[in-house]
């Protein structure tokens, strides 16, 4: 069976590429520290020696639209083109093409459906920065096949936080039951407190540093019960109007396992939002 060689959860900040490549007067004062943290984070994936990446993210109204909106969707295709005109325009993100692993995608779809997750699928999916940001930070060679899994953290009504945790657990089990000798890293990105298009956006820190502090603690210790006791679809409005992206971190806590302390934890307090990086090495990963 396949080996889960790493479980990795991260924020996805679309400005990282521009900040880290800027020079001279254009280079922000926090760019060097940010790059150092990213290089350390990248090393946690590199040393896991992955062959395939399961990538959990969320479409930002690019290919998925309100006339046909899936809650959870698995991409099954030989290739995934990536990034959109408006991401090129606003963030300077490049066009990319990633290979897909159709065998693992088919395994996740068939057996996920049989575990009572009514997964939607796409055979032609153009992925966006929720998946390409962690490629840029963690695997800039973009040389490994992926299985993208999209969640709806964006367009209410959304699934309950508990369902994200359950899907994370299921993805872990599904990868572990894949008849393959390959090493698979499960990587997912979300947000801590975040405000977009409202009065609290683009402040000196994330909109709710207290929520961020508690969230980092929940994730670092994979304290699923503690997190579920406080986090609801309603409560996530309070830290910032785009904070439902935190549910993808909850999914990754499910994938990491209840009360499993992360092997790598790092944060960076930026304007507008806090960055956070977590890596777990499951038993059997050899790490």
């Amino acid at each position, binding site marked *: 069976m396949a080996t889960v060689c790493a479980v990795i959860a991260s924020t996805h900040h679309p400005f990282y590429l521009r900040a880290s490549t800027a020079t001279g007067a254009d280079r922000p004062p926090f760019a060097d520290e940010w790059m150092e943290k990213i290089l350390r984070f990248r090393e946690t994936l590199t040393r896991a020696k992955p062959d395939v990446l399961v990538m959990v993210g969320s479409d930002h109204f690019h290919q998925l639209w*309100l006339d*046909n909106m899936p809650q959870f969707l698995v991409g099954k295709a030989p290739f995934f083109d990536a990034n959109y005109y*408006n991401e090129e325009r*606003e963030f300077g993100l490049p066009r990319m093409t990633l290979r897909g692993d159709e065998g693992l995608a088919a395994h996740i779809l068939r057996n996920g459906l049989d575990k009572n997750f009514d997964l939607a699928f796409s055979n032609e999916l153009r992925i966006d920065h929720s998946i390409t940001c962690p490629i840029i930070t963690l695997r800039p060679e973009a040389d490994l096949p992926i299985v993208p899994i999209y969640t709806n953290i964006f367009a*209410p009504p959304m699934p309950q936080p508990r369902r994200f945790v359950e899907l994370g657990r299921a993805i872990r089990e599904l990868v572990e039951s894949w008849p393959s000798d390959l090493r698979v890293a499960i990587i997912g990105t979300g947000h801590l407190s975040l405000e977009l298009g409202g009065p609290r956006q683009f402040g000196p820190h994330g909109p709710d540093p207290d929520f961020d502090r508690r969230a980092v603690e929940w994730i670092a210790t994979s304290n699923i019960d503690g997190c579920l006791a406080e986090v609801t679809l309603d409560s996530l409005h309070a830290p910032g109007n785009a904070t439902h992206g935190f549910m993808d971190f909850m999914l990754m806590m499910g994938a990491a396992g209840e009360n499993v302390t992360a092997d790598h934890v790092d944060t960076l307090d930026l304007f507008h939002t806090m960055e956070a990086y977590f890596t777990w090495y499951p038993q059997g990963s050899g790490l």
Partner: protein
Amino acid sequence: MEAVSKYLLDKFLYTVDRDPELVERYRSDPEGTVAWWEAEMANRILSCHSGERSTWLAFSDDERRALREHDHVTLFEMGAHPFLTLTLFIAMFERDHGPLEYQRAYGAMMKHLTLPYPDITT
């Protein structure tokens, strides 16, 4: 305020933001763009083959006015999706300002808003 069709507001913001030519048209001629869009685009089913259209989608007067006036505060108050509004308005107006100046001014214009924010459920 009349009944709000958040879905149609979102559809306008979504289709304009993702088309470079439409972003420029909406920036320079908001009234003409909104009128053209409502006549030609509002009833196009985006995920269907071309030629299939709905029959019932139209803006209310207040919605049309908010879009014509580039009034992002009213769009927020109507429950338009804030990510769509922000992304499109950055595309149209960030260029006229210094770094992050537009984003901060955009937020400052909403300082009077308190939780809970308007519901964005469609």
